[in-house]
């Protein structure tokens, strides 16, 4: 349906030999943004769409985005999940303009073209005209004009979509280490506790780098340190896998190691600082291990989060070159009792747009965007842990996962 619009795009050349330096123009050039839609978001990637728990019944639909593309996810009469571009085949209007709902079929409001829940065009108003006048030519075949469909895969109740046939199956795509962490966290049927939406005033890639940047966590976020959610001196590691596109960074409590913590001296360690009410820092070990913090990315724009007892998936949507929207779906398990739910709601004070831990991530990206704007050809320096893309055990003092993101980005973008 789409020819490459490359003819109307600038050409770009990567300045260096590897992914240890990134030119600032990636964060601000409109043609990069256009190219990302075509080659990355609509390329060989799996993109989080929504949760099965959000569309439990036949006819349920939810709207979402893959990059700039508006998407409809539906559950059809057979209980199957479908994903289509939310753009009428006729003049291109959004079909579903509400965030969620239930419908027997999808009707475009503009000229009443009707699609089934799989996106097949089933009705064209006045296709035969009126009294033999007007209408469509006889050679018009509705079968040629359904909604653009995405491939769909579901894992642990999370629904993913891909525009491309070249994308490998989801589990091959994320690799065994990411699969293992999903299995570790999503041990039971999920329940949505609520949504956050956070507008970030910077290019979307700066947020992705931030989530893959295990180096900043204890340096930027005082809370991590002070309350021992994450300290670089704590156990843990960063798992990247062969391909390097995705990552898993985790931390676990280990009384032995914490002794050494006293050596640390950074702005973010303020032992004199303490909470009047530490209820929200309580951690019920519900997953059978001591992991306090596990942040996992699925390239390009998904994050799966476990911080103490707060579990969430995050989806990032670009909003132009210098903005993006971060959508949090905060989760519990269906069988949580009231007390457990209460705990999750309190721990949620740590994350989200008002989260003690996550709020800083909302401003550092802007600081980079401002720092970068004056000099598109200046470059960042991503050499913590070397220049390669490799996992590291027992430490998170590496930017390997960030380099891995750029590896994936360049492979998709052909730059």
């Amino acid at each position, binding site marked *: 349906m789409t020819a490459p619009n490359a003819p109307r795009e600038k050409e770009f050349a990567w300045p260096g030999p590897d992914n240890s330096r990134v030119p600032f123009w990636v964060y601000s050039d409109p043609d990069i943004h256009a190219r990302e839609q075509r080659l990355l978001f609509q390329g060989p990637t799996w993109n989080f769409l929504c949760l099965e728990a959000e569309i439990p019944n036949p006819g349920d639909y939810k709207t979402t985005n893959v990059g700039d593309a508006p998407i409809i996810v539906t559950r059809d009469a057979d209980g199957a999940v479908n994903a289509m571009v939310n753009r009428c085949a006729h003049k291109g209007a959004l079909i579903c303009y509400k*965030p969620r709902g239930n419908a027997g079929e999808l009707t475009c409001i503009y000229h009443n073209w009707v699609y089934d829940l799989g996106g097949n065009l089933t009705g064209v108003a006045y296709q035969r005209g009126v009294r033999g006048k007007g209408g469509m030519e006889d050679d018009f075949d509705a079968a040629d004009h359904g909604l653009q469909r995405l491939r769909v895969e579901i894992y642990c109740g999370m629904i993913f979509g891909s525009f491309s046939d070249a994308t490998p199956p989801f589990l091959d795509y994320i690799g065994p280490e990411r699969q293992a962490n999903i299995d570790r966290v999503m041990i039971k049927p999920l329940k*949505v*506790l*609520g*949504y*956050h*939406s*956070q*507008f*970030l*005033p910077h290019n979307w890639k700066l947020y992705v780098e931030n989530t893959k940047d295990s180096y900043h966590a204890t340096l*930027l976020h*005082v*809370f991590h340190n*002070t309350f021992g959610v994450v300290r670089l001196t704590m156990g843990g590691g960063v798992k990247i896998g062969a391909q390097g596109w995705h990552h898993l960074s985790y931390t676990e409590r280990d009384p032995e190691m914490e002794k050494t913590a006293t050596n640390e001296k950074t702005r973010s360690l*303020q032992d004199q*600082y303490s*909470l*009047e*009410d530490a*209820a*929200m820092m309580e951690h019920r070990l519900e997953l059978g291990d001591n992991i306090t913090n596990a942040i996992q990315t699925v390239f390009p724009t998904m994050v799966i989060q476990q911080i103490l007892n707060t579990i969430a998936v995050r989806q990032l949507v670009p909003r132009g070159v210098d903005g993006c*929207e971060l959508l949090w779906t*905060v989760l519990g398990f269906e069988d949580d009792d009231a007390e457990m*739910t209460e705990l999750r*709601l*309190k721990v*949620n*004070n740590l994350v*989200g*747009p*008002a989260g*003690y831990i996550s*709020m*800083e991530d*909302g*401003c*550092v990206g*802007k600081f980079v965007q401002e720092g970068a704007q004056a000099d598109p050809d200046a470059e960042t320096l991503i050499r913590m842990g070397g220049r390669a893309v490799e996992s590291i055990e027992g430490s998170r003092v590496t930017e390997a996962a960030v380099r891995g993101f750029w590896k994936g980005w360049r492979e998709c973008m052909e730059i």
Partner: protein
Amino acid sequence: MANLMENLDLIRQHRVEALMTEYAHCIDDDRLEEWPDFFIEDSVYRVVTRENHELGLPMGLIYCDGKGMLKDRISALRTANIYEPHTYRHMVGAVNIIGDDGEGLRVHSNFTVIRTMHDGDMSVFACGRYLDRITERDGALKFSERFVILDSRRVDTLMVIPI
């Protein structure tokens, strides 16, 4: 003519509006350390989006039970959190006193918050409703419950200062 009840109503209305005004000025003038004192000890303060509220989802952006958690919000933003300096300006509409069950007055009001960044950018940061329960302590009115319902599902950048 002006009878006693009406007079009492006026005074009650006046006292509630004074509470609202002082609360707003306290935040906007950056006297945040005084903010928890607008609440009773075992109070509830929640900031919830209209979307979650109407979907019946319990989660809040901020979810505080008890004055301790309120104080922590302030000490955290003063000592721990990093953010671009900014200020709020609250506009609070006239209050609608719904009624008075045993546990205090139930009061609804509209609000808008304009946020100003240190570089001078101003924007409508939030608007919505206060759903309050107000009670008397030692001759002063205090919040036992303040639910802040935000019209928007989205927060710009971050929310560090309470609404």
